[in-house]
């Protein structure tokens, strides 16, 4: 869930700064238009000032400060999301293909897949509160595994595995989709992620012929 909280913290922070900057620029423009009108009414000439170096240096200092703040919060947020990965309770191999997904629980005889088109959207079931590792890959072109609820996506390359870990605390069911152009039915490459209690997850694994031990650690 770190992805989600870091996203919202940074998005709120940067939106606030953006609105303030936009407001200041808009106000300055408004001031320029009002001053220009006044000049015209009083028959005064435009200003002959060509530069204001002290003002510009002060502005540069403030600007650099804001940029430095943005850099620091961007980097620290990103590093919060990618700590040394804890030992995962569940590892799932996520494979994108033209044009659907396959979820294979590593070390278990459990694989979920579908056709995506005309129904048959696969559902990735995960236990709540446990560390899960997703190993994202592809068998043909580049896809991207995007779960908007998680505020995260990762590209799925052929001939390569990208891994990330996360912990989903809330139970629920969310829609995810492919986020990399991958051909004709890119727009139908949906999947679901369903987060259930660890007990329900064990039940689900057993019903598919797997062992529930994966989450008992």
């Amino acid at each position: 869930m770190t992805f989600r909280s870091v996203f919202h913290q940074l998005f709120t922070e940067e939106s606030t700064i953006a609105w303030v900057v936009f407001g200041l620029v808009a106000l300055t423009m408004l001031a320029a238009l009002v001053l220009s009108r006044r000049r015209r009414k009083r028959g005064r000439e435009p200003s002959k000032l060509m530069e204001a170096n002290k003002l510009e240096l002060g502005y540069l200092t403030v600007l650099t400060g804001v940029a430095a703040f943005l850099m620091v919060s961007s980097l620290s947020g990103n590093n919060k999301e990618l700590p040394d990965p804890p030992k995962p309770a569940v590892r799932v191999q996520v494979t994108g293909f033209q044009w659907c997904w396959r979820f294979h629980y590593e070390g278990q005889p459990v694989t979920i897949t579908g056709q995506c088109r005309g129904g048959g959207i696969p559902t990735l079931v995960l236990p709540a509160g446990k560390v899960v590792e997703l190993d994202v890959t592809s068998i043909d072109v580049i896809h991207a595994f995007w779960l908007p609820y998680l505020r995260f996506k990762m590209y799925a390359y052929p001939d390569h595995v990208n891994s990330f870990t996360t912990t989903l605390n809330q139970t629920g069911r969310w829609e995810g989709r492919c986020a990399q152009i991958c051909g004709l039915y890119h727009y139908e490459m949906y999947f679901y992620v369903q987060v259930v209690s660890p007990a329900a997850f064990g039940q689900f694994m057993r019903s598919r012929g797997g062992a529930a031990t994966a989450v008992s650690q």
Partner: protein
Amino acid sequence: MTARPALTRYEHRVQPGRDGLPHWLLTTDHKRIGILTVGTALVLFFFNGAIALTMRAQLAQPGLDILSPQSYLQFMTMHGTGMIVLTITPLAVGMGVYLVPLQIGAPRIAAPRAVLLGYWLYVAGAITMIWGFLTPEGADSGWWGYTPLSNSVYSPGPGESLWTAGFFLAATGTLIMGGATLWTVLRLRAPGMTMMRLPVFAWTQIVTNLMVIAAFPSLLAAEAIAALDRAFPGSFDSNFWNIAYENLFWFYGHPVVYVMFFPFVGCVAEVLATFSGRRFFAYKGTVLSLLVFATGSMAVWGHHLFASGQTTNDYYSLTSIFLAIPAGIEYFGFLGTIVGGKIRYTASMLFALAFIPQFLVGGLTGIMVATPSIDYQVNNSYFVLGHFHYTLFAGSIFGFFAGFYFWFPKATGIMLRERLGKLHFVLLVIGTNATFIPFFFLGYNGLPRWVPTYPDASGFPTLELISSIGAGFIGLAMTVFAYNIYISARLPRPAPPDPWGGHSLEWATSSPPPPYNFDLAHPVPKVRSYAPLFDLREQGLAQAAPQAATTPQSAETSDKRGEE
């Protein structure tokens, strides 16, 4: 500089200033090549815009069947590549080809025959790419053309091959034109025209073309790999080559967005200064920031790959956010210029003023997508579409129109109709913002790019409908623009040499300028600053500028000057 340079053997046959098709199509006059480039790019702007409107019709409601998923991807690929490679880049470079020699008091461009070759390579690229689009299996891998999707296994047929070849040709053409412009401004300046007396527009052309020659070869390498892969399938199967293509592509693909930006910053700067009736404010800071900006923008390409797991996110986040500093300095110049000014609200000035807040939206959301933790969510979503349409359309295209209304009288000797220009402006502001603001919400709520339709959920249909209605306004605005050019050419109102009270040397010569830019009747004036004509007016040595009028109606009267 008033002496006519010796004619080459080529120029004895194809003479500058002579009428007739061969004297245009084979011209070595930079003004004609510039007009051809900008004109061709404008025609393609309408073509790619019509494609965009078709896509907006398809997306107006969910589940529509105006375009099949296959055609949608083809239209989208043509729109993206067509706008970036065949329209906005040539507009940016072509304006430089036209204006830079005039602004520096030179009689011609360096290597004029190479520039002509560059133009025709661009035209060949455009024809090749559109030919590919018209084949049944047109290119449909998006404007990035990522491998392996774009290889001959996943995208068979001639369409993608023609796309690759067209991209290569057009990029080569603009590369040659950009290099010649850079050489011109470095080597052919008039006496007294030092580097620190160049107009801001000429400076933006320097940094633009530095990036062109540094970045475009990388695209040629990327497309060469793609072409070899299509010719010899299986040669580049390892994922190493996919990553290599992505890096080579973005080493071009990110700088090119600044290539499509700086010249229009130049347009806006010149227009703001002229219609504020004062010299551009904080010139030195602006020049320095342009150089820093261009240098920095060569080091940010990896931010397109934050979600790829294949790049150093911290580094690229750092370099990308750093660009906010030079960008902020440019805004200091813009705002400082208008704050002390006495503003004349011409159509050109309106576009330049709107550029400031509109591009800012693109810049501020740019900081968001430069933050990996935010980009993990919004990358490849409508949010990014919103971001770069604000930079390229609400920013660059508005800057282009500011420059177009400003320099059209110079290039053609004809004034455009101010009232139609203002109508064009109002419609375009409404259309642009209605079209692209919804994109931010669509992306935030989880709608990815490259989809021909979308679910009837999350408020998508309403937002998409607003966007499509906005696109209709853009279409209307562009119709008014086309009509303005038509009626202005049909019932011409001749332009004086300096209709606006301009600052730089091009306003010292006739409209349109003579074959070698300056002649005995229009000599290059003395250059003592980056606003030589402003200096002359201040010393009372030139005709009084329109802004000398002091009545509240002076904005109106100055608008009418060209209509006499």
